[in-house]
């Protein structure tokens, strides 16, 4: 009843560096441990390398570099989630997985105007409420497209 009255969207929420990000859960296939990465030459800096997963070669993206917010470090607890958009699949580095969260659509605020490069890939922002902190919700499809374009343009 309430769900019908207040439509919700499920996001896969994680933290990388100082950023708290959310990705729509339909774009996430599964979560892995970040194993050994094979560096790939002639790629943009945000591509950390490739790794094999279920017989598929998976490029691994560092969102911090992509959004120009620093750079990620791979540790024993670092996670890698497999993001999918259409036919494109990529691994994304996450320091910590916060979990799946159902967020009412009405709570999603538009991204701030006049933002930097990150702002164009945002669906919106969930403001902090109670113990929950603000999370930037990413437009993963657009982000993946931009990434492909940048990789190819090179």
């Amino acid at each position, binding site marked *: 009843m309430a769900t019908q009255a207040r439509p919700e969207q499920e996001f896969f929420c994680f933290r990388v560096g100082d950023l708290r990000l959310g990705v729509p859960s339909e774009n996430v296939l599964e979560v892995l*441990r970040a194993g050994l990465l094979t560096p790939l030459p002639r790629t943009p800096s945000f591509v950390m390398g490739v790794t094999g997963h279920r017989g598929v070669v998976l490029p691994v993206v560092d969102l911090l570099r992509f959004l120009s917010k620093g750079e990620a470090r791979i540790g024993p607890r670092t996670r890698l989630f497999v993001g999918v958009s259409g036919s494109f699949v990529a691994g994304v580095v996450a320091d910590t997985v916060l*979990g*799946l969260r159902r967020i009412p659509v009405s709570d999603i605020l538009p991204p701030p105007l006049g933002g930097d490069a990150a702002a164009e890939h945002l669906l919106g922002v969930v403001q902090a409420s109670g113990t929950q902190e603000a999370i930037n919700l990413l437009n993963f499809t657009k982000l993946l497209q931009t990434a492909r374009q940048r990789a190819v343009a090179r």
Partner: protein
Amino acid sequence: MSLETPNEKPAGKPRAGKKPAASKAGTAAAPAASPYKPVTDALLSVLAGNLQTRVPREILSGEAAELGHLLNQVLEQFAAAEHRKQVAAQEIDQALDSLIALVREGDLSRWNTTTEDPQLGPLLEGFGKVIETLRTFVREINEAALRLSSSANQVLAASTQHETSSTEQAAAIHETTATMEELKHASAQIAENAGSVARVAEETLGAARAGRGAIGEFIQAMQQIRSDGVAVADSIAKLSKRVERIGTVVEVIDEIADRSDLLALNAALEGSRAGEAGKGFSIVAAEMRRLAENVLDSTKEIKNLITEIREATAAAAGAADASKSATESGEKLGAVAAQAVEGILSGVQETSDAARVINLATQQQRTATEQVVASMAEIEDVTRQTTQASKQATGAAAELTQLAGRLAELIKRFKAD
């Protein structure tokens, strides 16, 4: 002279005796024969004391004249003898006067009386010899008196000196006696002190013995502590190993929890993809994930605790090591202390013995001092008597000197030369 006079007198007397007889006869015959009357008168006059009377020769004749002439001759001789007698008496008087003066004035040098009388000569010569002897005596006495005076002076000086020194000696002896008294008191004090020293040394000896026992116990305790410390170090090493083991176990648990977390996350994603049907599944998976996270939190805490325990055991091991070395040095110190106490024991023993010896010696000294004090008292007594005697001797010597002076004075009155 004296011998001659009696000879002469009897010679005269018979004549005189004859004369009275003749005068008696004359007187008897006077009325008859007056021619003898002048003779008789002359005889009467001589008898009356007039020795100058002579018989007048012109009135006599015959036998009477011859008798008168003889009588006159007798009277003449008698007068001459009388005169000689007077001269001799005068010379004897002179000699006697001279002797008296000599004795009164003591001037023996003035004796030079001489005489022409051959009868008096030997007498005066005898007197002269006597005077000469007297002179020699006086000279010798004078000399002796002078010597006596100087000797008496010397005796007086010596006696005075003796008296002074005797007085000084008495004072010194008195002082010595006082000093000996003080010495006696001091030795009594020393004896007392030595006694208390011996007593204290005895107490110290007991205390040192107790200290020796305590140090022995201390060393034993130290050894116990050291062995205990070794045991503690062993236990700490074991604890450390166990903790390491716990760490590996916790690592395994951590790994499992991590995998569980991942599995739960993927299960939630699967549930999400199943749509409305997988909703419950998703909730369970989320719950499982929370459990896994709880486990991870707990293992993190355990890891922290293990780190702390590791630090604590390291500190404990260090402390055990320090305790070991401390107990070792404590044992060494105990050994040193034991040695020191042994030294103290022997020293105190010696002190005790020495104090006892001192006590004994001072007691002997005290008795000896008492004897000395007694002897000193006797000596003081004797010295007092000596002083008294020397005072008397000085008095006597002074008197002697006076007497010698007086004797010399007296002798001076006799001039010998």
